[in-house]
């Protein structure tokens, strides 16, 4: 273990630079956040992730946000174990009929003010599972959604851009137009 730690002292960090906020996501969440919320949040949000029926591809990439390369906590974003500790629900789908009540209850257990981010093509639409007897579909058919991050699954960098847009809107930190990454 000593050699591993010693090496770490001299190695360059693996963490990548911060990506710019996604312009489209900024516009979408800007509408959703009022001034009061901006004051409350500061530059920190706590997320509760809810898999409402995904294939687990989105979960793999959401988990990757916490690895040393993306290191989501440096932006003030952390994941919580309980919806009662969360500001934001990060929901993947498609929402199945079997998960509808659990999702509604998780939403109800999240204190106000709260925001919902739908993740993935299934969570934002219904993806390839459209038309099945077993799915309701997009997350916004069950609970109100403030931000959509599409992709199948979205890359961690795309998730990060969307979440930073949420933070930026919360702190009213405007970026110059055209910084779209």
């Amino acid at each position, binding site marked *: *273990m000593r*050699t*591993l730690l010693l090496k770490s002292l001299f190695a360059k960090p*693996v963490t990548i630079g911060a990506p710019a906020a996604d312009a489209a996501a900024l516009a979408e969440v800007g509408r959703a956040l009022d001034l009061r919320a901006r004051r409350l949040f500061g530059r920190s949000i706590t997320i509760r*992730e*809810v*898999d*409402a*029926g*995904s*294939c*687990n*591809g*989105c*979960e*793999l*990439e*959401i*988990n*990757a946000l*916490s*690895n*040393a*390369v993306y290191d989501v906590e440096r932006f003030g974003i952390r*994941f919580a*174990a*309980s*919806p009662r500790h969360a500001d934001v629900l990060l929901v993947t789908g*498609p929402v*199945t*009929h*079997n*998960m*509808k*009540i*659990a999702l509604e209850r*998780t939403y109800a257990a999240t204190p106000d003010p709260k925001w919902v981010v739908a993740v993935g093509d299934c969570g934002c639409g219904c*993806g*390839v*599972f459209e*038309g*099945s*007897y*077993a*799915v309701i579909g997009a997350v916004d058919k069950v609970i109100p959604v403030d931000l959509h991050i599409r992709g*199948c*699954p979205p*890359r961690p960098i795309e998730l990060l851009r969307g979440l930073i847009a949420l933070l930026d809107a919360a702190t009213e930190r405007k970026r110059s137009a055209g910084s779209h990454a």
Partner: protein
Amino acid sequence: MSMPTGSIVALLSKLSAHAQQKPWPRYDVDAETWVRIGKGLAEGEGDLLAMWGEPKVVHLALRVAALPHPCVVSLNAAGGAFPSIGAHHAPAIRLERTISDLYGLKPVGAHDVRPWLDHGAWDLHVPLGKRRPADRSVPTGYAFRPVLGEGLHQIPVGPVHAGIIEPGHFRFTANGETVARLEARLGYAHKGAEGLLSGAALDKAARIVARLSGDSTVALSFAFARAMEAALDIQVPPRAQALRGVMAELERIANHFGDVGAICNDAAFALIHAHCGIFREKVLLAADRVFAHRLMMDAIVPGGVARDIGLDDTEILITMLDEVAVGFSEVVHLYDDTPSLQDRTCGAGVVSRELVKQWAAGGHVGRASGRDFDSRRDVAYAPYFGLAYDVPVFDAGDVDARVWVRIREVEASIRLLRAWLAALPQGPVLVAVPAAREIREGIAITEAFRGDVLVWVRVKADGTIARCHVRDPSWFQWPLLEAAIANNIVADFPLCNKSFNCSYAGHDL
């Protein structure tokens, strides 16, 4: 021992197979033969590989060591019922409950007739059978098995869990800290895949199958493609076969890196988790550059692979392997040299050799408990033919053994990858899928990182999919998790669960 050994072989030898299914035979059987095969499986004559329904037929796939190939037996169930296999052979129980939920065919003589995937939340009863309208109920009522005894209490967990994981419910009955019994309730991620696959065009079906369990998307697409290719007599070009192997092994090492890290993290050893997270990320970044998708989703298609790679791409992969191989070997030494970590993993979550044999549990769950089976070697397929391939097998059956299976598999996969990348065959990577012209059936097994996945497909004359069944390895691993956690402390459940890492989505379909 009421059954003579080899009775399944004797039964099957009298039957003639359907011409339409390839490459392994499918036989129509009568109810008596069906039951005798079920009893033979219970006697340990072979492995139950899968069991699935159609509106009027039930199918059972099995593998008997004395026969050269796996096979399928089919029973007419037009009367709405079939003799239960689960009554004799427990691994069939949840499969039969699923057939009953989706197709309305009742397993006669079954001991457990509770619904499984149907939580009472759909608009329909038997959605793939007679489709009767249903009143939705609150999907929380479920008769968990009673556990009686002094000082017992229950701990309900899920379907929304504390971590970033999939939905499922675990009902623990504990005596103080110790788990007396765990019963899982699954099906929350059920998306009706078999219903969507029926009647789907080929490309749509391929995209659905690739999304039944995102972490195994390569293995699922690989199995689906091979089942289609068997059905339609398609010869895949050698370069495509090698690239499929490359993708399958990249998926395996990426998942094993993630699992080794996450298991150590659940034992509060975050250093290994941090390093393994970087290794996994390096694999996925390289996959993204080379195959244009981090998880390589939709990259394997019937007929070959969706895109070719260049010489630069080969270099990217070789460089990445050099980096992660060195780093991983240091992490393995660290795991081996840290008694405080092994104090958590050794002796925790033990599964017996008898159970993994009975359940034909694939992957690290089986191989950590002495089951020497790997479909890459034992039901060999391209590009694994003729490779001298070591299957790591351990005996302890605990969390530690499941970690070591993964470690040895990473090393073996890196050797395979280096060999293929050093000598990729030249030539095309895709051939056109020919017209079916008649009903055809195909079946295939591939080795996903967590075990063998099976895909069975029936193609219509117009080339669309008539039926498709996908059996994830988790079907035969989830029930063993319930055995593994018994007499462990509740707090070790995340550790044991992660050492299995079963798929919820792949099971729930």
